């Protein structure tokens, strides 16, 4: 099973290699990993997508928590969350396919971020399903290159739905 973890770490040199080294050293998988600073410049947030059964996930979470520079691990198996990924897709767009590409991009609420006579580079954001869907469609028209950010995730804020 694939799982998403949020890891708050101290923003210090070497922290990423501690996290990555933990995964390689113990034979855990990393499917994707993104890092950036949080509101607090001393703290970074890592979103990590990994695979493993219940026992492995338990170990991963515990082992991450054990790292001295890890402040908090958010196990998204236990919290509702929103996740997004961004892809930059360079796609063939010659005279006869250009309109089709633009139509697809529009349907997916993507944006064209670079244009050249024969290529368009588009930016799409969405969950994994959405990204996969546009990639499948554009593939028929000829994708030259794709760069994806990997997943970022954030916990949903608590909604107070109780009726008064």
């Amino acid at each position, binding site marked *: 099973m694939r799982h998403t973890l949020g890891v708050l770490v101290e923003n210090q*040199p*070497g922290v990423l*290699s501690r996290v990555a080294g933990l995964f390689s*050293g113990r034979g855990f998988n990393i499917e994707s990993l993104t890092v950036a600073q949080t509101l607090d410049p001393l703290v970074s947030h890592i979103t990590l997508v990994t695979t493993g059964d219940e026992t492995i996930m338990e170990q991963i979470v*515990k082992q991450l928590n*054990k790292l*001295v*520079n890890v402040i*908090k691990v958010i196990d998204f198996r236990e919290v509702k969350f929103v996740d997004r990924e961004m892809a930059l897709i360079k796609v063939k767009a010659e005279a006869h396919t250009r309109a089709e590409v633009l139509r697809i991009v529009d349907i997916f609420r993507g944006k064209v971020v670079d244009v050249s006579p024969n290529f368009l580079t588009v930016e799409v954001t969405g969950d994994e399903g959405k990204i996969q869907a546009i990639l499948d469609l554009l593939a028929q028209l000829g994708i030259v290159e794709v760069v994806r950010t990997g997943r970022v995730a954030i916990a949903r804020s608590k909604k107070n739905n109780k009726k008064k």
Partner: protein
Amino acid sequence: MKLTGAQIFFESLKAEGVEVIFGLPGGAVIDIYDEMPKHNIRHILVRHEQGATHMADGYARATGKVGVCLVTSGPGATNTVTGIATAYCDSIPIVVFTGQVPTPLIGNDAFQEADIVGITRPCTKHNYLVKDVRDLARIIREAFFLARSGRPGPILVDLPKDVIASKAEFKYPKNISMKGYKPTTEAHMGQIKRAYATIAKSKRPVIYAGGGVILSSAAKELKELGERLKCPVTTTLMGLGGFPAPHELWLGMLGMHGTFRANMAVASADMLISIGARFDDRVTGKLDEFAPSAKIIHIDIDPTSISKNVRVDIPIVGDCKDALKKLLQLVKENPLEDLEKQRQPWLDQIQKWKETYPLAYEQKNDLIKPQYVVEMLYKLCKDKNPIISTEVGQNQMWAAQYYHYSEPRTLLTSGGLGTMGYGMPAAIGAQAGFPERLVIDIAGDGSIQMCIQELTTAVENNLPVKVAILNNQYLGMVRQWQQLFYERQYCATCLKMAPDFVKLAEAYGAVGLRATKPNEVEKVILEAIATPRPVLMDFVVNPEECVYPMVPAGAATTQMILV
């Protein structure tokens, strides 16, 4: 007033109460060594940096204090890796200070540069590169705190030469704030209650204790728990000394070379109370058949140890001592009814196992049996309350089986990593902590050669350790595997080509003694312990002796080879 990094280093060590540093200088740390004579701190000059780490480790295991090493950059630093990994596997608190090239040169493949922080990341509890002298005192404070708190372990602090030379205001921080480090030391009362409710229902309980009992100084509580529950106790290699070996509830060590009764008891138990142990493969054998009918309680300070290898029914995260105290309180308030009668069938069964297959060997009057040497050491030294260290291999297992440990911190052995060469430097470190006590390394002829150079260190510093080499002229434990599982093809395990250990001892300025016949063993031991200098005893023993019982790797622990 501003102090240099080197001065801050010594002031900080003083603040931590450090009495002794094991080290060896070089260009990158020469400023620290230059500052050293101004400070009242003992430095023991080693002959190889691996020796320094094992000495710091042996000192830490024997005294319970943090051991300290100081080495130079590059090769000095890389030489510490085995010792650091050894301490890491056994959760031993040491702090290793390494020199580093000046910060502007880091990453430039400078002379004697090694990325020691990168190299030791997976085998330290944590490590630091100090980039600014203003961080030095705080980092040293954190390093010692991390080393000894929670699940203890080695910490490495890398000191670039320019950082050591530059100046900063010195104030040793009182408080520590590390957002990401908050070990759970207090055991959860709810879990303790659940545990006791389960224990109360059990008919065939066994306590399985490990090194955690020794690290948390919980031997007294362990003994009391065993007695109040009338529950038999076994320990891992790391736990030896955590429960008094002569005790009627003592089962002996369990696992690959454990006693028949300990392994049978665990296999038949309906309740396993695991305290500060981590279900290592040398203990469990085949996992599916380990304690198959037991409910398992697991007390450990490290959550990652719980349910890592074996499913646990009642996990208790916390310091062993705290957990045991709370559990004992419950036991005292609600003693089990009819305990004697309840427990008797179980204790009778264990007694039967004990009588069926006791640990045994036969000493005839030709060749010395290695087990006999260990037994004689026990007999002749036990009243002196000695500290025993071991090397790795058969010598280590015989030291575990035939020497009986009654107190914690009296056995120093590399359990997790199994590092040949550990024993003698560890003995030297322990002797530095306890100059008056008898310290004996039970050694193999192979292992002893891996750190033999430290004999000089012992001689120079008047650390009168005794080394008892069980000289079987083999890398004996490997040879045993070849004998039992590889059709006696003794490939690369023969050590017939060996130095004359008596002459070698003398060359180092120590005393060398030899016994080749059983009736010489006692005399050699008595002479050694009466000699106030380092002594190397060469016991020429039966070359093809094996350690039994033995559970083949990967087999169930009931599948013991007993002969």
